């Protein structure tokens, strides 16, 4: 007997009475979504920057290798998309367009239509996500409603930079992934 058969048979054999699956109601959300989003992101150790601030930062800082899959900042791209993601091990800055943002926790949804390579938002040293104001929703329920059943092989909610508190509960930013997250709200 295969394990699939034995596991399913063991469950069926219990003859459990079906319990109801609840509907998820709508919950009240913040009125000022941009302000709430900004505060949530600060809590996660990310920062909201304006388009001009980002452009100035790029002009002033040393980001030798930049890749933008966001059309708004396409002009800053100065490298080719590698065949293997390891080719981006030295990527300094990635700029990606986000689809939906949840104000309650600053999480932004990105899927394969935004990511030219799945590894980009993780392997880059610094990450910028661009989100349009009208795509900021109140909470995770509304975010999933927006995403709906869209099919993408991979999708991710990113809410801040890579972080850890595994050494005596001291918060350190930049564990394995991006060492900073900046969000541009357009």
């Amino acid at each position, binding site marked *: 007997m295969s394990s699939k058969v034995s596991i399913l048979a063991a469950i069926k054999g219990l003859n459990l009475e079906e319990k109801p699956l609840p509907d998820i109601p709508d919950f009240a959300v913040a009125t000022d979504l941009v302000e709430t989003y900004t505060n949530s992101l600060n809590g996660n150790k990310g920062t909201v920057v304006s388009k001009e601030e980002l452009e100035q930062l790029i002009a002033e800082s040393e980001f030798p290798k930049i890749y933008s899959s966001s059309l708004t900042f396409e002009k800053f791209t100065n490298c080719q998309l590698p065949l293997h993601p390891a080719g981006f091990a030295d990527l300094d800055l990635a700029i990606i367009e986000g689809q939906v943002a949840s104000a309650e926790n600053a999480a932004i949804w990105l899927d394969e239509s935004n990511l030219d390579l799945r590894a980009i938002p993780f392997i880059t040293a610094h990450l910028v996500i661009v989100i349009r104001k009208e795509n900021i929703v109140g909470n995770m329920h509304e975010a999933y409603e927006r995403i709906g059943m869209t099919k993408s092989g991979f999708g991710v909610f990113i809410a*801040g930079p890579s972080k850890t508190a595994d050494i005596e509960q001291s918060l350190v930013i930049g564990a394995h992934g991006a060492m900073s997250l900046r969000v541009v709200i357009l």
Partner: protein
Amino acid sequence: MNHPENATVFLKDVARAKWHDETLWIVREKRDATIHQIPEWEELRELASQIKDHTLSKLDFYLEELEKNATANGIKVHWAENAAEHNQIIGKILEEKNCKDVVKSKSILTEECHLNPFLEEQGIDVVDTDLGERIIQFLKQPPSHIVMPAIHLKKSDISAIFHERLHTEKGNIDPVYLTHAARLHLREKFLQAKVAITGVNFAVAETGEFVICTNEGNADMGVHLADTHIACMGIEKLIPRRKDLGVFLRLLARSATGQSITNYNSHFRSPSPGKELHLILVNNGRTKQLGREKFRNSLKCIRCGACMNTCPIYRRSGGFSYGSTVPGPIGSILSPGIDLKKYSTLPFASTLCGSCSDVCPVKINIHEQLYEWRQEITKAQGSSLKGLSMKLADGIFTSPLAYKISGQLMRASLKTLPDSIIYNPLNVWGKGRNLPELPTESFKDWYKKNRNRA
């Protein structure tokens, strides 16, 4: 395995035990602060509990749905009856890929199955990539907490092991410096590994996708750089609908650490072109637990660790004192279902204060199940010393004369008996407890004297 004995070892280092207690309580306070910002918190808990109850009541149906939809997405689904089969499936995939180096992100299931020692025996180098897990892997220790695996260690311990293994400066205990050293070390491993192993936080039946939550981004670094991703999940990790994730992602991180959400919440639905994605569904005793009516809903657990952070016993005895993969209150109701004899002391490692049930995001009645397991264990063990004293007490309380004499005897003898007799090893209740100061007379005598006073 004996919890009180192990706890005694933990408590020998008084300063460290105090730090452990206080640090976990801070995490509990952070949780409180964050949930108070969510007016619908209790409603979310109830929803999560009902969604899990529903899923468990139709687990066979949802498992088949998951397999069907995941397979259609291009995921290779495997079924494992037990830990050995789970390990063999992974061993076989690695053999086919001729792979000797794997990176693994945090997975309590692979701990439960003892995957690392199994693979190491086959000459495979397994690198745990969560920072806390890498630290304890260097020290050859198991995790002492499911969310904060190295919570039992101090900066100086970590500095010492990093000096030895990663050649960091001797005595440098700066967490930023140490984390950066680990980042460089693990990045090399990520770039080399051809196969990445992960756990699963939630699997969605209707879409055939699964979700992994991390703060470090280590799961994503592993799987997106490797050619093959193997994800391992217990069969209870299922939820029916994608929108249910909205409920669970709001609850998980807030309960675990007080964050509003983990920074990376990755949804895997199909492999990247040219890559492979495997999903292993593991039973390992879960269907047995599902069959135990009183303990069934322990399978609702989403592994947030909130019950550990709040538990007065866990905080003061440390994760290792439980001797089981999942420690703390939830571990104490899961482990006896796996091996009643081995884990017989765990349901007693509780004050039954109920704080664990209060903080549980899926409303598992943990403290009531602890009490139920005590009944089961007492039945299985037959009479004990405690049982004997209860019988004795029963005799004393039914006879007024015996009650009167025993009271007088007690007051006289406890004053004169040396501590070595009162706190002897046979008296398990004497351990860690002090007797109250004894009154000079009984209430009965006092009443006789005072009854006629105005």
